[in-house]
Structures are given as structure tokens and as C-alpha cells.
């Protein structure tokens, strides 16, 4: 792989020397992709979808090369960005920043080398650096379940909520959720605690919610992993008052349960698929091959998934 890369580099360098440099920049796209490593199921999905995009696009376009780098933390990602520009000599970059603030300067460095930048999911603190931005819809991620629960509970009932790891994404979702509930004064949000997008933590939080609140009508688990822990805690306590458990993101196991109607408490979900990395890579590669620009902002909508449309969100081969 690296050997092949190097050969290609030498070949393109020779070509660049032989032909005028401008002719090359338009047609050949050397695309770098910098994403987080597969440390939990969502990022595993990101890695899987990125590789799918690479496979498909490189097959379809001869003059496209995609290099994927996965990082376990922000510092490693910054190093990879450096390598991508200096060694791989990319001319377009799709980056899923590990952290917004920490990656802003490193991405600006890449940009200063004339590379086309598409930022995915987590925005940089300086938006002028990015040429395009592709992201999921975190507001809808909180709004859709709130609207669904309000309707399903007929505007009256008790809800408990779980939150992820304290981040801006989590705040955005929570604010959207409580924003909708303000219009439904008879729905009470009893409490919301952090389950860190983790099954075990969600289990413990839910267990304590069950001890504390004698009547809960619905749970906003806010994540399909957390929903697993929540369901186990409810089953263990043998509580029958909870009518709905609403997860989120559309992990394949959760979608399968929804499709098969295996659990009456799981009636809906909201999409937030790691597939947006696939969309971002595809859009960037195809636009750059034609020498075109992307729209400055592409928001992949988060929509309500129910039994009827679940099939379109089920990807059995993806790890997520």
C-alpha cells in the first residue's frame, strides 16, 4: 500500500515536472480522509462507511486516490494531517475533527497549502477555514423524539432522559428536546443524567431513576447503546409503567428490533447515521474531479424512523 502510494507519488511528480502543473490540479484528485478510530460502535460505523466510499469511488474514477487515516486522539489526528499534506500530498481533505478547538489550527495549516477542505460533523472554531461543511442534524436529533413522545403520550406524562458525554453536541440535542417540551406543560421531564453513550453507565442511571420515580411513562435514552442498558434495567426491576423507550442514531440492532416489532416499547427511532461520512467523501470527490465547488453547508437530515420506513435505514453489513 505505502509502496504503491510512493510509486504513484513519484509517477505524479514526474508527470508534474513534464507537464504544466495547472493541467493536473483539475483532473487528478488526491483525497485525504481523516477520521476518528473505531473505538465505539458509532465511530466503527464511520470507519466502515469511509472505506465503502473509498472502494466504490476508486473503482468508478481512475484519476481519484483516497487515503484514509484513523486517529485515537486529537494529537494523533494533527500529526496525520501533517503527513497527509507533506508526504501523501493531498489536494482535497475530508476531515471529521476529533475536537473542534484542537484541530482548527492543524486544518488551517493544510488549507494554507491550497488543499480543498470539507469538514464533517464537528465544526471548527474558525469557519472561514472550511470550503464545505457536511453534518448530521443534532437539533432534529433532540426535536424529533420530543415531538414523537409528546404525541404518543397525548401531551401528558412523565419522562426521564439520558444524556451522552458532556459536549456541545449533547447540549444541542438536549436543548432541542427541552425546547419542544416547553410547548407541552403537562409533560414532566423528571430528570436527565449523563449515561456517556455507554450501555453500562446507562444501566446504572436507569436503575436509580427507577428507584427514585415510581411512575415513568417514557424514557428518552438518546442513543441506541444507552437504550440497551435502559431496557435491561427496566426488565430487571419488572416495571410495567414505562410504555416507550426512544433510542437514537439508528444502530442496526435497534433498527432490526423496530422492523421485527420485537419489543412493544421500541416503536420509533431517529436517524443519525455515520453514513454522512460516505456522503461527504462522495460529494467532495465528485465535485473536485469536475473542478467544482460544494455548497458551503450540507445538513444530512435526522428523520423519524418507524416500522414503515425502517428498511431504508437497515445496513446489516455495517458494524453500526
Amino acid at each position: 500500500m505505502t509502496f504503491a502510494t510512493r510509486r504513484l507519488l513519484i509517477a505524479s511528480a514526474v508527470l508534474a515536472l513534464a507537464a504544466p502543473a495547472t493541467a493536473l490540479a483539475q483532473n487528478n484528485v488526491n483525497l485525504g480522509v481523516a477520521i476518528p478510530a473505531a473505538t465505539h460502535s458509532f465511530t466503527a460505523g464511520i470507519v466502515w462507511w469511509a472505506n465503502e466510499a473509498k472502494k466504490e469511488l476508486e473503482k468508478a474514477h481512475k484519476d481519484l486516490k483516497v487515503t484514509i487515516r484513523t486517529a485515537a486522539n486529537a494529537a494523533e489526528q494533527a500529526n496525520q494531517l501533517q503527513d497527509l499534506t507533506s508526504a501523501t500530498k493531498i489536494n482535497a481533505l475530508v476531515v471529521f475533527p476529533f475536537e473542534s478547538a484542537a484541530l482548527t489550527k492543524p486544518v488551517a495549516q493544510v488549507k494554507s497549502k491550497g488543499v480543498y477542505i470539507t469538514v464533517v460533523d464537528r465544526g471548527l472554531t474558525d469557519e472561514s477555514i472550511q470550503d464545505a461543511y457536511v453534518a448530521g442534524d443534532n437539533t432534529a436529533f433532540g426535536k424529533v423524539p420530543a415531538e414523537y413522545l409528546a404525541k404518543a403520550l397525548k401531551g401528558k406524562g412523565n419522562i426521564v432522559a439520558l444524556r451522552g458525554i458532556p459536549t456541545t453536541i449533547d447540549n444541542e440535542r438536549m436543548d432541542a428536546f427541552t425546547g419542544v417540551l416547553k410547548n407541552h406543560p403537562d409533560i414532566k421531564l423528571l430528570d436527565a443524567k449523563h449515561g456517556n453513550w455507554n450501555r453500562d453507565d446507562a444501566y446504572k442511571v436507569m436503575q436509580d431513576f427507577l428507584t427514585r420515580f415510581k411512575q415513568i411513562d417514557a424514557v428518552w435514552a438518546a442513543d441506541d447503546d444507552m437504550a440497551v442498558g435502559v431496557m435491561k434495567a427496566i426488565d430487571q426491576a419488572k416495571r410495567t409503567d414505562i410504555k416507550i423507550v426512544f433510542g437514537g442514531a439508528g444502530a442496526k440492532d435497534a433498527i432490526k428490533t423496530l422492523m421485527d416489532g420485537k419489543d412493544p416499547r421500541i416503536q420509533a427511532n431517529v436517524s443519525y447515521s455515520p453514513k454522512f461520512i460516505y456522503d461527504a467523501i462522495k460529494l467532495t470527490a465528485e465535485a473536485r474531479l469536475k473542478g467544482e465547488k460544494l455548497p458551503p453547508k450540507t445538513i444530512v437530515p435526522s428523520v423519524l424512523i418507524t416500522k414503515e420506513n425502517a428498511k431504508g435505514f437497515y445496513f446489516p453489513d455495517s458494524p453500526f
Partner: protein
Amino acid sequence: MPLAPATEARLGWTHLPGLGPIVGLALLCLAGTLLTPDFATVDNALNVLNRTAFIGIIAIGMCFVIISGGIDLSVGSMAALIAGAVILLMNALGEKGWNSTSVVALGMAAAVLLGALFGMAHGLLITRGRIEPFIVTLGTLGIYRAYLTYFSNGGAITLENTLADAYGPVFYGFFLGVPVPVWVFIAVALAGALILNRTAYGRYVQAIGSNEQVARYAAVDVDRIKVRTYMLLGACVGIATLLYVPRLGSASPTTGLLWELEAIAAVIVGGTALKGGAGSITGTVVGAVLLSVISNLLNLTSIISVYLNAAVQGFVIIAVAFLQRPRR
């Protein structure tokens, strides 16, 4: 918590320095009772003990390792890898048409065996390889978790449904009104206390931790004792894992995250010195319970901002350590 006063009275006059964690736990329970009526109920007490079982059992093994002057940073990753490997094994056997009960029994045995094997690898690298335990187990911390992530493709490894039903009672079952994991926790604690205080091996562990050279001159087979100590911890991790697997029926790269720090904290909060030499199983058990009472209490109330949960835990740990500081 009906056990606490009795233990306190028995230990009160004989082991004065060991009193810190018990006082801390008693104060915390008092605060909990005053703050919310939901705290001092049998159900809540059983919930807390039940979820303490994993960390508690690991902490008892960790107590031996720390007393012997060692450390093991890998226990969380090890638990995750054992969980994943055992689930894969059970699923494979299940597919071959074995009956569920024997598959589960085999899975449980495999968990303990795998733990002991990992522990033996640590022990041999530390004694024969003469590598610092911190480095050996820091290395395996990364190795175990990476292999689990690899096996699961970054997603979750999930136990087959019929097997999960057969395995369920090991976590969700009750015996005489008390959850099974709590019984196992009690049994492991009693066995640990017995081994540490009433056997030659236990005394050797303490001797090695207090002065390895002197122990060597006293003809203690230091290397063998050390290897056995890491194996004991590994087996404890295996036991904790075999209780953990039926809870969610799955293992993922986030399984057992930071368990090593919780287990080490339980041991140290319980009055064992990080430099080794002496320590107590009772203290370790109380330390483990104390840690989970804190988060239980934070979940049961909403006086403190959720963003500060970790800070509360930190303050309590430091306060309890202060209560039981050694006299100069």
C-alpha cells in the same frame, strides 16, 4: 445496610487506622438517608451491592497485588476481552447444537481460566522478564482492548438470545432474597480475607510487599508467590466477568472502561498502602461499596449539577483518604 454496624464494632478497637473508610461510608449513608427517602431502602441497598460486585471482586484480587508491591492497570481491558472471547466461544458452541446449560457452564469456566492465564503471563513477564509491573500491565491494557475492538469490528459482540436466557439468572437471579452477584462477592471477600490472613501464602504476600530482599533471604520463593498473586487477580477478573456478561449479554470496546482505576481506588480508599506491605480485605470491600454509593446518591438526587459528578467523587475519595491517613 445491616452489616455495617457489626463490622464497625468488631474492628473499632482493634484496627483503629482501618476505621476511616467505614466512618466515611457511614457518613455518606447518613447523608443519603437525610437527602432522599429512596436511599435507605432494601431494594436500593441491593442495587448498590449488586453493581459493586464487579469492581469489588476485582478489587479483592487487586488488594493482593498491591500488598505484594505490584500493580495491575490492565484489569478493565482484560475484563472486556474475556467477556468478548467468552461470548464468541459460547455462540460458536451454541451453533454446534450443544445444550445451553453446558455451554454457559463452559463459558463461565473459560472466563476464570482465561483470567488466570492472562494473570500468569503478567506474573512471568514481571518476575522472569524483570519488567516493571506498571509497564507490563500498561502494555497489556492496550493489547487486550485493541484485540476486543478488532474482534468486534468496533461494534458490539452479542450473546445469542437462547444462551442469554439460560445465562440470565447468574446476574438477575436471587438466592434467599439476595441477588446472586452479591453472594459471589461475599464469598470471594471471605475467601480473600482467609487467604490473606490465615495462610502461609498470604503472609508471604505481605512479607514480599514490605521488604522483598528480606523475604528472599528468608527463603520465600518470591517469584512463584508473585506469579500466583497475578494469577489470583486474573481469576478474580474472570469471576467478575462471568457475572458481568449476563447483565447486558454483550461486550463492546467501552466495556470495563476505567475499571482499573476504580478497583485501585477501592483498595487504596480501603486503607491499603499503594507501596504495599499491608492491607485489608474488609477495607477494600468497604472502599468499593463507598465508591458506588457516591454515584448512586448523585443519581438519586439532583442538587448538584450533573457536570460536577466526577468532582464529588474526587472530593469524597480525598476526604476519606484524609480520615485514614497514617499517624506520624
